[in-house]
């Protein structure tokens, strides 16, 4: 953690308040994500983890507070500035969010085609490089998303998120709905890519195995507040939910190995 603290903050959330449908999801949250670290965000269902992610990437307007990403206030960006920011991050949505009417290779090429002037032949090569980096077989390139399994769709979504070599990667429940073996492979993939591309990763997850395998620090969203720590430190947290999460039956089983 000391090494991470020395690095500059890539995401800085200050005093974030989110009120949705009369419920307070976030009550003055402060959160910093440092360069080249993997931060996992956990919390119960409906605790506002995904809303926090959506707020940071500008899909959700916060009720109060400021969110800075790569040194710029997200709320102040519009038009070209916002596009320039969006090129610098990649987002993997829960089920990949691939465009169903285009092949996997075309999906990966969409950001390249929109934001760069790479010639078509090189674009095809880059797409297949990205697809093999996320561990998809070469014949997946010509398939449509509906022909892929859930795990492969997530990998393809990750390839699209990484198309422009972003500095920052957002993952929304990357292992949800995957069998344990695929989930473990996906964890390893995220870790490998994070190292080789030196990504900063902001990951929302439920999966305690994923937390153990990939994250440097963990932010727990409970009772509309955030507690930050590592697995070891959160185990002894006085909050009953956090304690139960990390020291309960599933938590112990996952962390014992």
């Amino acid at each position: 953690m000391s090494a991470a603290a020395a690095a500059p903050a890539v995401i800085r959330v200050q005093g974030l308040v989110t009120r949705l449908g009369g419920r307070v999801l976030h009550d003055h949250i402060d959160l910093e994500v440092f360069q080249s670290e993997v931060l996992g965000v956990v919390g119960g269902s409906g605790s506002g983890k995904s809303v926090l992610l959506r707020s940071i990437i500008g899909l959700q307007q916060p009720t109060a507070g400021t969110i800075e990403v790569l040194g710029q206030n997200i709320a102040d960006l519009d038009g070209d500035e916002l596009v320039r920011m969006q090129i610098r991050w990649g987002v993997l949505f829960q089920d990949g969010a691939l465009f169903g009417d285009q092949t996997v290779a075309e999906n990966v090429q969409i950001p390249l085609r929109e934001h760069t002037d790479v010639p078509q032949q090189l674009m095809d090569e880059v797409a297949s490089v990205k697809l093999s980096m996320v561990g998809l077989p070469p014949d997946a390139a010509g398939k449509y998303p509906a022909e892929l399994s859930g795990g492969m769709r997530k990998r393809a979504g990750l390839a699209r998120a990484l198309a422009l070599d972003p500095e920052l990667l957002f993952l929304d429940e990357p292992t949800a709905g995957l069998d344990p073996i695929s989930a473990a492979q996906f964890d390893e993939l995220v870790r490998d890519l994070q190292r080789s591309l030196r990504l900063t990763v902001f990951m929302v997850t439920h999966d305690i195995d994923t937390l153990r395998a990939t994250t440097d620090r963990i932010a727990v969203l409970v009772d509309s507040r955030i507690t930050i720590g590592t697995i070891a430190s959160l185990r002894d947290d006085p909050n009953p939910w956090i304690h139960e999460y990390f020291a309960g039956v599933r938590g112990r089983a996952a962390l014992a190995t």
Partner: protein
Amino acid sequence: MVTVARPATAADAAWYSIERQGDTLRLVVGGFWIISEARRLDPGLRALDAAGAARVEIDCGALGRLDTVGAWLLLRTKRILEHRGLVVQPVNVRSEYRALVHTIDTECRAPAVELPPRHRFTAHLERLGRGLSHALHQGYELVGFFGLIVSETIATVVQPRRLRVAALVHQMEETGLNALPIVGLLSFLIGVVVAYQGADQLRQFGAEVFTVNLLGVGILRELGGLMAAIIVAGRSGSAFTAQIGTMKVSEELDAIQVSGLNTVEVLVLPRLLGIMLTLPLLTFYSNAMGLIGGAVMCYFDLHITIPVFLHQLRSAVVGWTFWVGLIKAPVFAFIIALVGCHQGFKVERNASSVGRHTTQAVVESIFLVIVADAAFSISFSRLGI
């Protein structure tokens, strides 16, 4: 020799140059090898001329930044040269980029899959064939569904306890009562339009009063029923598909089945009977509103008073004219419910398929309603009614 020189203006632009020492070729690269530079670098590297050289060194000492695309360009160049039989030294980059180069070098081994080229003409032919076979298949399935519905309906008639009255009444409210405003308004406007256009033409012969005949026959025989059916197809046929389709996506249909219930009995029959009972009523209402619209237009445009209008109408509407319109309504209703429910059951388990089948339900039911209407017109004229 192809090289890409560093542009004088940009300090961080990517460049490379080639030096020869005996049989060794040194490819010196520098600047930012990133995606925005790829366009300038790509063609030269692809056609790199290494004639006469046996060994190649790639010197990355002056390299500024490197991203996936830049690393791929370096590795691709290495592989192209190796493929020509040259000995290429490993790409040696700064430590921070070593992991990236290593990942790409180890992961991207498989040759790119060549997608089969498509011929324009055969692609069109293929589309035509697919469309035709899809349409035939659709018709075949619809006939099957028709049989299923008929047999279930007969079973319900024999055993009326199987009919779900609450659901039936709810469907009648949805498809009938709630459609009154839109059907009324549109039929009224159609009456106005027909009267206006008819009056314009008939005035040339001094036969304005026959506008009433045109209205009476046109609306009662055709337009009233057709308007009601088309609006209901758009409103309720699509709703049937969307409702049943959404239930399929959320596995509710499976839940109905495993609970020992019959999906046709629970979902289709109330909708089918509901719409078959309400569409004739809606047709009657649509006829009335169309005639009112026409009467209003006649009054203001042709100064035909209401008593004169009614008198003329009574002489125009003789025999079967009124019933011809109404007889068709249950058939139209059956078509709309059949297509709407059938498309609903055909929805696959993804959200986009709900939208696709809903569109298809509307197009198909309106198409079939108009085809049926044409068939009715021909048979009625053969029968002389």
